[in-house]
């Protein structure tokens, strides 16, 4: 605040560099290093009950009987629930709509059949959680085992058992992305290089397992749900649909969240059931996931089999790429399951100029937990595919893999460059980048060392890879399902600043980074900035933290412009995001108390376009 007396322009120029880029101790750390933070499972409400699940030990089976008497008779048990008890509770949602997509019914507890190991069959509510778990183990379920479908390639064969019988197939969808004349590309090719590649299934494994706590107050008609989630607002919307309350009656709070990696970017069975139980029983109910449940019943990532064919000229010029992807959906669709392989298709061209492409994706049901967004969600899979086929092609052509890549990069003058899959890359100098990387790594000497090693029977591996990723998932032609973000900067009567953000950090440290950005913008100390997130009753509707989006998106969404409309390229926020709006002097329009930063220009979709959709809303105690 000391700098307030200085001239405005000078102050701004100077302040821009004060906090951003400075090494600060994180604002969130004192509570985390002293054990005084509150993750969902740390919360305890008066009269709270504990929930536990009986889950299927089989991947595919008919349920012929469920005996709950012994569990019900256990002292301390308040209720035992199976699928038929859940009147008024909706299905687990899938947010993806696409033509021809088979969306199987996804009930909260299994009905008639179980389709993956870990699928919940019954739920128990008890006065303490040892009793809840005892009772869950006392429930006896008779299963008639069915043939199990685990292999995607076999799942599509005619004689394969079918997981969702009414579809008469294990195919969830087919999706094509084509551009250019692929047939003539392969006809003109001197050489075609083929490779089958597997992106193996994996488990996200946040250190904090999931947990849900719900309380319903009938007088206020207010359902409050604490959940270990990356997306409190999206969850609020879906919970309201599942339990049948107006969205305005549902409050979701993501308290301290112990990592997500995409696994908490979802809406799970327990996030519908625990609130439903709290409403039904008139008492708060908590469920905390065990690690075993986390591995079997929280989403998995990847699991695709890919066939790539690259059409090439003798000199190494790429003519076309054909890709066939089998993507394992698991047994049901979670929130974004069918979308993930489509992101692979979108990024499949990587950093390269490929004249023609033909991508075909088939989504396949198997008797496994659903796949969904995990670290990069479809995009690292694309990079593995393209980079591996580039490596195989260079080897087969007898070319150096770096040289081969250099040959197929778009030239700097071609930017903004539209890839064959329709993405616009705003700017890049790939040639310079790879040359610098080769120089820094001492590539030539590594190759010499490798050759000399061979002479002495020693093997050194030298790998080359390039990478470009679509991040932040903002509104653009490329990501029509993408999200804007909300933010409010409120200057309180005492001069302290409250920042409300729709982002929902769970380890990213955004309480600190956002405070740095706002401190520079307003000329105050980050200590005076309090960043509030994760509470849908406090924060305007937001999208959440995932896909490297929150800090990159903030520069727009929680930043106040000064009254001259000078909010452009000098802003610390834009520097932090490493994106610049174009043109660099955006026009600010005042509309009531809301300032929109508007992009003018050529109407093209730029990588940073999401920034221009943001707004900075100034509260009633405005400094402007």
């Amino acid at each position, binding site marked *: 605040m000391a700098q307030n007396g200085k001239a405005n322009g000078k102050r701004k120029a100077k302040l821009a560099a004060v906090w951003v880029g400075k090494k600060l*101790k*994180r604002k*969130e*750390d*004192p509570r*985390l*290093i*002293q*054990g*005084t*933070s*509150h*993750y969902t*499972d*740390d919360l*305890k409400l008066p009269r709270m009950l504990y929930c536990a699940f009986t889950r299927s030990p089989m991947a595919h089976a008919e349920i012929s009987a469920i005996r709950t008497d012994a569990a019900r008779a256990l002292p301390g048990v308040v209720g035992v629930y199976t699928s038929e008890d859940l009147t008024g509770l909706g299905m687990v949602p899938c947010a993806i709509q696409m033509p021809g997509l088979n969306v199987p019914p996804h009930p909260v507890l299994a009905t008639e059949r179980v389709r993956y190991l870990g699928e919940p069959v019954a739920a128990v509510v008890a006065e*303490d*959680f*040892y009793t809840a778990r005892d009772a869950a183990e006392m429930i006896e379920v008779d299963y008639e085992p069915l043939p199990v479908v685990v292999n995607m390639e076999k799942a599509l064969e005619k004689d394969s058992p079918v997981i969702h019988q009414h579809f008469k197939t294990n195919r969830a969808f087919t999706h094509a992305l084509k551009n250019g004349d692929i047939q003539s590309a392969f006809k003109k090719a001197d050489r075609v290089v083929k490779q089958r590649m597997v992106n193996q299934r994996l488990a996200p*494994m*946040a*250190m*904090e*397992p999931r947990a849900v706590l719900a309380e319903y107050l009938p007088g206020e008609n207010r359902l409050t749900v604490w959940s270990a989630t990356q997306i409190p607002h999206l969850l609020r919307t879906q919970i309201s649909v599942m339990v049948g309350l107006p969205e305005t009656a549902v409050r979701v709070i993501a308290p*301290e*969240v*112990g*990592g997500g*990696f995409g696994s908490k970017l979802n809406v799970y069975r327990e996030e519908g059931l625990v609130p439903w139980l709290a409403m039904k029983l008139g008492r708060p109910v908590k469920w*905390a996931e*065990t*690690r075993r449940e986390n591995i079997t019943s929280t989403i998995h990532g990847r699991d695709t089999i890919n066939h790539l064919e690259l059409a090439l000229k003798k000199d190494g010029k790429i003519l076309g790429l054909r890709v066939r992807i089998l993507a394992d959906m698991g047994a049901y669709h979670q929130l974004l399951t069918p979308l993930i392989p489509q992101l692979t298709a979108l990024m499949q061209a990587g950093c390269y100029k490929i004249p023609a492409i033909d991508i075909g994706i088939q989504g396949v049901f198997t008797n496994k937990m659903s796949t969904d967004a995990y670290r990069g969600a479809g995009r690292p899979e694309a990079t593995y595919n393209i980079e591996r086929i580039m490596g195989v092609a260079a080897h087969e052509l007898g070319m150096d893999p770096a040289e081969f890549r250099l040959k197929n990069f778009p030239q700097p003058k071609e930017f903004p460059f539209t890839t064959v899959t329709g993405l616009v890359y705003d700017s890049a100098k790939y040639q310079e980048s790879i040359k610098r990387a080769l120089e820094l790594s001492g590539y030539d000497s590594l190759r010499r060392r490798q050759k000399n090693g061979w002479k002495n029977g020693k093997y050194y591996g030298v790998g080359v890879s390039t990478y470009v990723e679509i991040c932040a998932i903002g509104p653009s032609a490329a990501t029509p399902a993408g999200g804007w973000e909300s933010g409010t900067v409120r200057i309180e009567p005492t001069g302290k600043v409250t920042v409300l953000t729709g982002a929902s950090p*769970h*380890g*990213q*440290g955004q309480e600190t980074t956002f405070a740095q950005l706002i401190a520079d913008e307003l000329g105050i100390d980050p200590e005076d900035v309090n960043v509030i997130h994760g509470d849908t009753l406090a924060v305007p509707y937001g999208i959440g933290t995932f896909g490297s989006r929150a800090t990159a998106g903030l520069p727009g969404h929680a930043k106040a412009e000064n009254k001259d409309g000078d909010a452009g390229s000098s802003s610390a926020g834009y520097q932090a995001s490493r994106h610049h709006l174009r043109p660099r002097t955006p026009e600010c329009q005042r509309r009531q108390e809301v300032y929109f930063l508007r992009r003018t220009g050529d109407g093209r979709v730029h990588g940073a376009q999401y920034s221009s959709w943001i707004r900075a809303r100034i509260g009633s105690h405005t400094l402007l």
Partner: protein
Amino acid sequence: MQKNVTIHINGQAHRHSVEPRLLLVHFLREVAGLTGTHIGCETSLCGACTVLLDGRAVKSCTVLAVQADGRSVTTVEGLAQGDKLHALQEGFWEEHGLQCGFCTPGMLMCSHDLLAKNPAPTSAEIREAINGNVCRCTGYQNIVAAVKNASRKMAKRVSARAGAR
């Protein structure tokens, strides 16, 4: 069947009647209300629940509360002295040794055990000592730096005290 236990947690006696099967971590979290100790796996694999039992690091998800009867337990809540953070807490804060913070209490307590036995560990010794504690966010580099930072601080304080005498 219930059993009476007295467990001294962070210098305070907690007397309760508990089931013999009650895990120490559940005693800490549910009975004593100290939720700084986290449960990451319940199978001794992740180390999030690490506490000190008579000064030695144990994974409290595989110790029964009755085994801790009459003994002393230190949890993350007991590391700081009032407003004064422990050197390990300062180290983790200064070196960005945490992100989501869920594994942090276990990392702190495990490192505490290490520094008590070996006040000036090498990077390799730190990695060896924390190999039963899993962190999903940091990649461990900054955790190693944090423990070294604490080790340096503690050495300085020891020599300052020696100088004062």
